[in-house]
């Protein structure tokens, strides 16, 4: 037996290597350097460097770690570059809005940045993985640091408890997930996504069961009904920066892997998963939006809102079985979701004067008088989450609904439009509290330079996507056609 090394091109995984390497470097640095600021800036620099390297790979299709007679383990194409950019931007956004927060809540420690970098590399790997095994490992690499980060807030019992709940459900869902991929391996004898595609026959019962298990696992990760029950608790209990990071990063990464696995490896089963996903999307939209109506805690409300947004994204994924333009609309929606959600959490963080305090709807009374700029920003983000033009949220929903109609999912588009109208109630209630009430709050608003920068970027992004969506959609669509396999699948 002789060893034949695989063909390796490290440049392709450079964004991953930069983030993982920076995490390792921070760990070593921990021995020598005790100043927290250093870690912050190093992390920011590493993520920015990874972003630059990532964008440089736009327009090419690469594969690396190719074993003899096999498919590449990791691929980089426009699809993954686009998603990685969103993920890295979410990392930068999280850092910007967390600058002051971590300090005043005494959560700042080097390990926080380390875990964030590791989790971020797991997220990026989800979209780049070309093998079911790597999808599983990436899923774990993204989740395990998040479980720990969610449990970091030491002084509060509910943080620990929500971290525990998050962990147990997460471990459970990855068990189901890996059972699903084991069944698909059993049906095809292969684990590489293109190999599964090549061998899989429609109607294989093992693969059918495997797809169902896989779907359950993904639904847990992206927080879709009926596997959403962890989301509100965890969003409420985790430190707000972790919530912000998780709500964008984990969701986008989950959708990245969902799209790649289902459209590249499992188009043979598309009849089955399209219907199931459409049903899940409808349930998610209805339950997420309706339950959000009753929330008085902003973080909890945003938790249900993120469930609802998973529903809108799922519409696009369900439509992706019909035509590939739908994938483009999902990507555009994610971009809008990134800017809007990051911005909204930025405002929440600015008002959270102590860990877990200042996050009730009541606390937003009279904000317009206290801090007109912050409330104006919040106004834009809330309008965008509702989907009012001219904001990014509207553009995202417009393209998603269009692709649903083109895929003959009329009923789903109608449900989505109706639930959007319902969602207006709870988003605009925040605006109402800010502008229509007089508040007696005297706690300071923490808006440092970093947070202001983050909010400004989020604001510009949201409005830019709102006013000029066509160019962005073009870009998102290019991200899909660059990916030939995705097209072959769609």
């Amino acid at each position, binding site marked *: *037996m002789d*060893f*034949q*090394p*695989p063909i*390796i091109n490290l440049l392709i*995984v450079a964004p991953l290597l930069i983030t*993982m390497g920076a*995490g*390792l470097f921070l*760990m070593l640095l921990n021995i020598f350097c005790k100043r927290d600021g250093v870690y912050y800036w190093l992390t920011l620099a590493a993520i920015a460097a990874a972003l630059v390297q990532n964008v440089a790979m736009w327009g090419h299709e690469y594969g690396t*770690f190719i*074993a*003899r007679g*096999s498919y590449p*383990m*990791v691929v980089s194409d426009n699809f993954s570059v686009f998603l990685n950019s969103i993920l890295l931007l979410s990392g930068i956004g999280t850092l910007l809005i967390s600058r002051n927060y971590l300090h005043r809540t005494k959560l700042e*420690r080097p*390990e926080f940045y*380390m*875990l964030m970098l*590791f*989790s971020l*590399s797991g997220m990026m*790997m989800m979209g780049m993985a070309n*093998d079911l*095994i*790597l999808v599983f*490992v*990436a899923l*774990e*690499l993204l989740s*395990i*640091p998040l*479980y*720990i980060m969610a*449990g*970091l807030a*030491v*002084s509060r019992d509910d943080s620990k408890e929500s971290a525990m709940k998050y962990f147990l459900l997460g471990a459970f869902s990855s068990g189901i997930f890996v059972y699903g991929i084991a069944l698909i391996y*059993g049906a095809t004898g292969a684990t590489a996504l293109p190999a599964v595609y090549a061998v899989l026959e429609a109607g294989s*019962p*093992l693969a059918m*069961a495997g797809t169902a298990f896989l779907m359950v696992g993904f639904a847990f990760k992206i927080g879709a009904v009926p596997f959403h029950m962890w989301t509100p608790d965890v969003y409420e209990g985790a430190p707000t920066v972790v919530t912000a990071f998780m709500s964008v990063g984990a969701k986008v990464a989950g959708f990245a892997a969902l799209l790649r696995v289902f459209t590249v490896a499992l188009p043979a089963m598309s009849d089955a998963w399209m219907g199931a996903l459409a049903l899940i999307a409808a349930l998610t939209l209805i339950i997420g939006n309706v339950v959000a109506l009753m929330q008085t805690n902003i973080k909890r409300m945003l938790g249900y809102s993120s469930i609802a947004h998973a529903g809108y994204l799922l519409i696009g994924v369900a439509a992706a079985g019909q035509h590939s333009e739908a994938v483009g609309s999902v990507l555009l929606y994610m971009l809008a979701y990134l800017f809007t959600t990051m911005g909204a959490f930025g405002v929440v963080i600015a008002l959270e004067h102590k860990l877990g305090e200042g996050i009730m709807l009541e606390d937003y009374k009279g904000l317009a008088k206290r801090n007109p700029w912050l409330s104006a920003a919040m106004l834009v983000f809330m309008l965008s989450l509702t989907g009012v033009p001219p904001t990014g949220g509207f553009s995202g929903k417009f393209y998603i609904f269009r692709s649903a109609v083109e895929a003959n999912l009329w009923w789903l588009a109608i449900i989505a439009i109706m639930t959007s109208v319902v969602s207006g109630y709870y988003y605009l209630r925040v605006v109402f509290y800010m502008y229509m009430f007089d508040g007696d709050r005297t706690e300071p608003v923490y808006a440092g330079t970093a947070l202001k920068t983050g909010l400004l970027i989020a604001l510009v992004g949201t409005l830019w996507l709102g006013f000029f969506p066509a160019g962005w959609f073009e870009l998102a669509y290019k991200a899909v056609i660059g990916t030939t396999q995705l097209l072959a699948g769609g």
Partner: protein
Amino acid sequence: MGNSFVFMLLAVIAVGSAIGMLVSRDAVHSALFLVLNFITIAVFYVVLNAPFLAMVQVTVYAGAIMVLFMFVIMLLGAERLRGMWGDRPSELVFAAFLGFLLVVTFLIALVMEGKTAVSANMIDSSPVALGLRLFEGYVFPFEVVGILLLSAMVGVVILTISNKRGKNV
């Protein structure tokens, strides 16, 4: 004939110990049942011509992981568990659903049975073959698992250290 007898015996032990794990009211008993279950599964691996994995199963699962469980149970004095058949009627519904799932999988397996070609000649389950496979095809996930274990380790440390800090304040 002898083979199927061994299989049946092992399966009964494994499923029985899993059920024992499920219904025990004492966490230590639960953990011990699980150890028995893991060891039985290791015997299955031997039957399936995967001796290396059987050894790993015994050392890592039955050894390391379960010892960790026992240690934590003892440390916290958390032996007492609540009974299984508690206050939720939905549990029965759920159990029925699982039974249904089992039947479905049964049927699937029987359908699969027809087209499974068994080629038992070319088995290569030596650690060398496994190592080659890991480093030829799966270097990248292998390295990533390293990072994963590292982050788990860091997490364990800060979760317990932060606790001490919390008490001092």
